[in-house]
């Protein structure tokens, strides 16, 4: 009896039956949608921040405290963009593709148990429903690839079909082991059956499930559908605005759905000591998602033929063997005592080592040297970087001091020093210095007109080097932007009015009066 059903029963005493069933269901639906949306926004935030830290970057931290409103800003930005439909695209298919991708992902949450009895519908086909519904999303992605009239999208569409169909099989088979132990398809029953979390009893099944599911939702290293370096962004290359937002949302909803399913099937759902159930559930979900992020920030992408080979040669036989072993255990030790986990871990390790030998690196032949050791090393390194100080800076607030010899965006000119010799104009490779002089009373030549077009300047510093009288300096400024090219042309008056920010370029004597340069790795003390 779920909480929802109890509520409905209670309401039946007061309300007509249709209202008593419909209204609580509607409320529960809205609550679940809100939970999903909030969690998806949080996932987007986490993805951007945590991958930032893995990559020793700060990550987005502008919108709101710690950048917590960044996903909102992203959403607003995407939503106000123009909705473009490519010419000669299949408009009808193009329109429906994001919707068909998004709604199956949302529908999965109908059978996710958030806590004791907190489930929308405790279907007795629970996990079968999840598997069936999530296979519908492939059609949406394929429709996007087909309907965009774009060859990159079409390639992504072809990859979708191959990938989704291949990885669904090990996914379902790996769930099979769980079902044998739990003896039920219902998600509630599966959680109730986990006195020992199933990732201990089914280590191999858990690994296969995790890999196959990561592939189902196109997470790295299986993100071939949107492989940016190969097919631009794959199936949503031609999408913008609201439709793109739906794809984006669908991706994270899928990721959230997968994390919840992994937490429910293998990590014991809401069950654990001390804290209330839903809190444990969300902690487990976040852990699963962080592992996904960790993988994304470390691993390169597999190639499409390797993707298929991995599914069929590695995951599929292992999943079958796992199912067979679990079934055998079910006959010999029907109660699945906890000490089986040692046996199962040993079997899993043995099988993975054996199969890694059958999956050779080209050129090395069959060898048992590698069994994910390199991957583990890389993951360890990225994990170490998670705690290193970020190397990026908060730019406008935190400014770096440029070098003392910095060749900045404009020249600093001293009128009283200049003798109008035009050495700078002659030295300039792009001939942008325009000087006109006349005979003066006190000095020999007086500069009448000085115009420099910084829109064409190379900032090579040859003019400063050519100046014989210390009248021309590079500047230490580095911020200059203008919407009009004319604004980049400086004349004599502007030179005189400009702030004196000369740099020591070509004048090493001036270096002592400059502030020291900010270095990413400053020299150690006492040298």
């Amino acid at each position: 009896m779920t909480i929802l059903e109890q509520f409905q029963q209670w309401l039946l005493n007061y309300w007509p039956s249709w209202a008593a069933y419909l209204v609580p269901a509607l409320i529960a639906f809205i609550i679940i949608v809100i939970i999903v949306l909030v969690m998806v926004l949080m996932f987007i935030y986490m993805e951007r921040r945590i991958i930032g830290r893995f990559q020793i970057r700060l990550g987005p931290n502008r919108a709101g405290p710690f950048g917590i409103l960044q996903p909102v800003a992203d959403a607003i930005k995407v939503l106000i963009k123009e909705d473009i439909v490519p010419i000669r695209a299949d408009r009808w298919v193009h329109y429906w593709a994001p919707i068909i991708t998004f709604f199956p992902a949302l529908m999965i949450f109908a059978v996710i148990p958030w806590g004791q009895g907190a489930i929308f519908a405790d279907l007795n086909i629970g996990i079968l429903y999840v598997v069936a519904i999530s296979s519908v999303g492939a059609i949406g992605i394929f429709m996007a690839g087909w309907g965009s009239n774009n060859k990159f999208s079409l390639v992504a569409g072809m990859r979708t079909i191959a990938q989704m169909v291949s990885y669904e099989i090990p996914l379902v088979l790996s769930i099979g082991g769980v079902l044998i132990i739990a003896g039920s398809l219902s998600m509630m029953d599966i959680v109730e059956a986990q006195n020992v979390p199933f990732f201990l009893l089914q280590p191999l099944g858990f690994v296969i499930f995790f890999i196959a599911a990561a592939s189902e939702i196109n997470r790295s290293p299986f993100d071939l559908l949107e492989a940016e370096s190969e097919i631009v962004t794959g199936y949503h290359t031609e999408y913008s605005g609201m439709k793109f937002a739906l794809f984006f949302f669908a991706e994270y909803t899928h990721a959230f759905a997968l994390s919840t399913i992994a937490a429910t099937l293998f990590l014991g759902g809401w069950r654990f000591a001390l804290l209330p159930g839903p809190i444990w559930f969300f902690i487990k979900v976040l852990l699963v998602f962080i592992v996904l992020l960790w993988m994304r920030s470390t691993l390169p992408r597999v190639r499409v033929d390797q993707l298929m080979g991995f599914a069929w040669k590695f995951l599929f036989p292992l999943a079958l063997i796992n199912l067979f072993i679990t079934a055998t255990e079910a006959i010999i030790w029907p109660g699945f005592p906890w000490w089986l986990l040692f046996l199962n871990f040993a079997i899993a390790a043995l099988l993975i080592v054996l199969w890694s030998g059958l999956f050779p690196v080209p050129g090395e032949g069959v060898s048992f040297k590698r069994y994910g050791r390199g991957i583990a090393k890389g993951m360890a390194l990225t994990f170490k970087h998670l705690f290193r100080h970020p190397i990026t800076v908060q730019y406008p607030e935190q400014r770096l001091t440029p070098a003392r010899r910095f060749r900045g965006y404009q020249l600093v000119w001293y009128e009283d020093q200049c003798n109008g010799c035009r050495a700078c104009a002659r030295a300039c490779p792009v001939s942008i210095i325009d000087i006109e002089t006349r005979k003066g009373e006190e000095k020999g030549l007086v500069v009448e007109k000085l115009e420099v077009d910084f829109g064409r300047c190379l900032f090579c510093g040859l003019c400063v080097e050519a100046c014989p009288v210390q009248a021309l300096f590079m500047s230490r400024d580095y911020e200059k932007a203008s919407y009009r090219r004319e604004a980049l042309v400086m004349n004599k008056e502007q030179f005189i009015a400009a702030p004196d920010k000369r740099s020591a370029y070509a004048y090493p004597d001036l270096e002592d009066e400059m502030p020291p340069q900010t270095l990413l790795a400053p020299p150690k003390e006492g040298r």
Partner: protein
Amino acid sequence: MFKTEPIMINFGPQHPSTHGVFRMRITFDGERILDLEPVFGYLHRGIEKLGESKTYTQIIPYTDRLDYLASMTNNHAYVLAVEKLAEIEVPERAEYLRVIMAELMRIASHLMTVGFMLNEMGAFFTPLLYMWREREKILDLFEMVCGQRLTYNYMRIGGLSQDIPEEFMPALERFIEEMPGFIDEYDQLLAENEILLARTKGVGILPPEQAINCSVSGPVLRASGVQWDLRRADPYSIYDRFDFEIPTCQNGDVYDRYRMRILEMRQSVRIVKQAMDQLPLGEVRTKVSATLRPPKGEVYGHIEGPKGELGFYLVSDGSPNPYRFHIRAPAIINLTMFRDVCVGRLLADAIIILGSIDICMGEVDR
């Protein structure tokens, strides 16, 4: 498995992994490449023709804009050619500093190449950012000596534009001390990664004979097992004074080209360390007139750039401007074998093969 009609896809000039504005017209059977036609010229600025109207000194900033990821070595190659043409002696200290700069530039350029190659392999920006961290440190050093982070314009005919500042040597010392550790970290990150091995081993194999026939040079050539490095084969500057190895690999696949660059970085660190120890005091520049008029004649000066043999061919007619100014850019010549190694492979392979060749469109199109 299925036979399909071939489709033709235009990769670029706007594409995330074509290193600028490179374009490939690829004919696919499914995802297998039947034919590939590189198209370039989108970044053509006519630098060779422009050079004919500039003085010899004024050309130096233009060489910055050839391979903008390795401006120092471009400067180096050019000034060496001019010095050969005009027979100018360079002070000892300047030679050493040039070598230090060139080797640092090689490290920076290789970091960029390897980072982007791994990024194109799908390692979502992480190796790139780790490698950029060290590249930034090198750029900090360059900024310290010449005031710019990308277009250095540091070398001059007859020496350098100016001596290094005081704080340069301690900063360089720290960098050189730490760099081998960071290279170890890159290796730990991905060198043994099973996915990377499966993606790169045996992909895009360039046999040594073909490499020589295509006139390929640099790490790409050495990855195929040909021990040819101009620093040894035709020592220029003062490279004969340093003790270093020319690493080679055997297979000539993408993995070897990736390993080559890591190995070369280690050697570069060695060279810089030796040059730092031997660095003499003294002048860094012999005075050369701004309107240098070299004697009539022609010269071809070449160095081992990060991407391969970078050569400058100059013809002087006795005037302040070169009569002919030609650049032997390694990237465009290394591209000649691109089609041959890609045909028959998958789309994803072509992308990483392109990444492993390491092109820079500023140099390819000039």
